[in-house]
């Protein structure tokens, strides 16, 4: 386990104007593992993602990917190391086509630059057609119909397809660590099950990929994750298998017990 771990944090902390949002959190994830990150609203799950992807700089602690500290690195550099994410509220570019959105994930691998865009259309043509083939094969993993909709603006798609495109966009980066932020948000139970199927397919496609999935819905977590970390008020309160965590008294309290905690 120690040697196999691909990503870990060390006493990761952040506070906003005196309010501690993440408090000395240590999590780690092995290659090919699916880690569930649970906790009530405001327990710091999304904030951890924002730290990992470099949007926020932690006030204390450090985090490592493949043995290298990513502390203080700008988001684009962290992305290029192989960490991709989706957002809780979809951040697709709604005016752009499905294909363009997936292309964004491949953007940084292209050799192509501004000068080439103007003067070397042959290079561009080659890159675009290769990228398009790859995008199509990615899209068809999720939903064969999405390939036919590749030219349609994302804004015209239903919620579940947008979520799929978003995951495709992240997968297009060929990440080794994928962060999914509440992929089931705003979905019906049926759509959720479908999406879980899709995510499992993603894992089968590339065995190596590690996934951290943020959820507060335990059914989703139970169906997909190997291991679960529970957070409350920015602190880690439990860790273990799904069964273990869901029987933990502190977790139960956080979710159901004390009044005043929003679920």
């Amino acid at each position: 386990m120690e040697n196999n771990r691909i990503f870990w944090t060390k006493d990761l902390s952040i506070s906003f104007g005196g309010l501690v949002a993440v408090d000395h959190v240590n999590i780690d994830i092995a290659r090919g593992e699916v880690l569930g990150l649970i906790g009530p609203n405001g327990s710091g799950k999304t904030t951890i993602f924002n730290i990992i992807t470099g949007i926020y700089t932690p006030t204390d602690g450090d985090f490592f990917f493949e043995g290298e500290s990513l502390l203080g690195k700008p988001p684009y550099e962290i992305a290029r190391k192989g960490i991709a994410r989706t957002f809780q509220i979809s951040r697709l570019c709604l005016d752009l086509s499905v294909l363009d959105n997936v292309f964004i994930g491949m953007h940084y691998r292209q050799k192509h630059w501004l000068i080439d865009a103007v003067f070397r259309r042959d290079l561009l043509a080659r890159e675009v057609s290769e990228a398009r083939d790859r995008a199509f094969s990615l899209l068809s993993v999720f939903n064969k119909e999405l390939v036919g909709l590749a030219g349609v603006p994302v804004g015209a798609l239903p919620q579940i397809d947008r979520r799929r495109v978003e995951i495709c966009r992240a997968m297009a980066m060929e990440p080794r660590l994928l962060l999914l932020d509440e992929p089931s948000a705003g979905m019906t139970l049926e759509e959720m099950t479908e999406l879980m199927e899709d995510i499992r397919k993603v894992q089968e496609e590339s065995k190596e990929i590690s996934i951290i999935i943020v959820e507060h819905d335990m059914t989703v977590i139970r169906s997909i994750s190997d291991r679960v970390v529970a957070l409350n008020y920015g602190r880690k309160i439990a860790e273990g298998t799904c069964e273990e965590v869901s029987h933990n008294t502190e977790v139960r309290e956080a979710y159901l017990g004390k009044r005043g905690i929003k679920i």
Partner: protein
Amino acid sequence: MTFLDMLLQQSINGLMLGIMYSLVAVGFTLYFGVLDVINFAHGDFFMLGSFMALVLYSIAEAAGWAGNTFLVVIYLFIGSMILTGVVGVATERLCVKPVSKAPMLISLLVTLGLGIAIREAVRILYPRGSDPKGFPTLLPQGAFNLGSIVIRYENLIIFGLGIVVIIVVNFLINRTKMGSAIRAVAQDGEAAMMMGVDLDRTIDITFLIGSAVAAVAGIMNGFYYGKTMFNIGAMMGVIGFSAAVIGGLGNIYGAIVGGILFGLLETFAAAVLPYGAENKRVFAFLIVILFLVFRPTGILGEKVYERV
């Protein structure tokens, strides 16, 4: 004249200019609060106010009751405030509110277009509107000395009037039911609406206040320089917006502080810097840009964290 005297003299001039800028800046801040819109036409309401006063004055002259200077001045201010305020509300309904939910560039361009339309309407409708228009000398002239500093009565009155208007606006916003509605809408329009605030009416009142206050500034400016012109609004709009931003957009006290700061910057640049007189605004705008870069939330603004 010692250096200290010069500083004092300039501070007084700067304060006077600054109070005028503050009155324009207040409008920017109010509109941004209730509609999240920067109304680039706001400077033209400043100009419109001065022209309304000219029209009202010529009516008074024609009717032959321009004799009592004190009453005429009050009549000019009140009349122009009402007229400009009404135009302000009308334009808000016609073109500002419809684009308040649109992307920022659209509202920006619409309000810029509105500015052109107002400017041109004034130029066309007012007799020989393309020329500078002289302003009647109604305020007492002359000056008194305070040590070696010269204070003109006119300036003192303008300054005092500015302070009064600011106090009144402050009272309206912070102490009345209407004001609390405006503040509620500025905080969160939808929540305010659910709590029974009439959103449309509140926005109307905000524009009425904003335009009326800009009109006051416009008349003050007319008295100060002794003239007005149809195209002074564009520059005043940029200054007012700058002042609102330096102070902290959305904060009324910020707008006042920002306006005075801009006025002081201008006068000091004119007095101290080489080639300062003609380039005073270049210097002031430079400071504005620096402010935006290093403290975009302004002097009185609070730091906000973007939610991701």
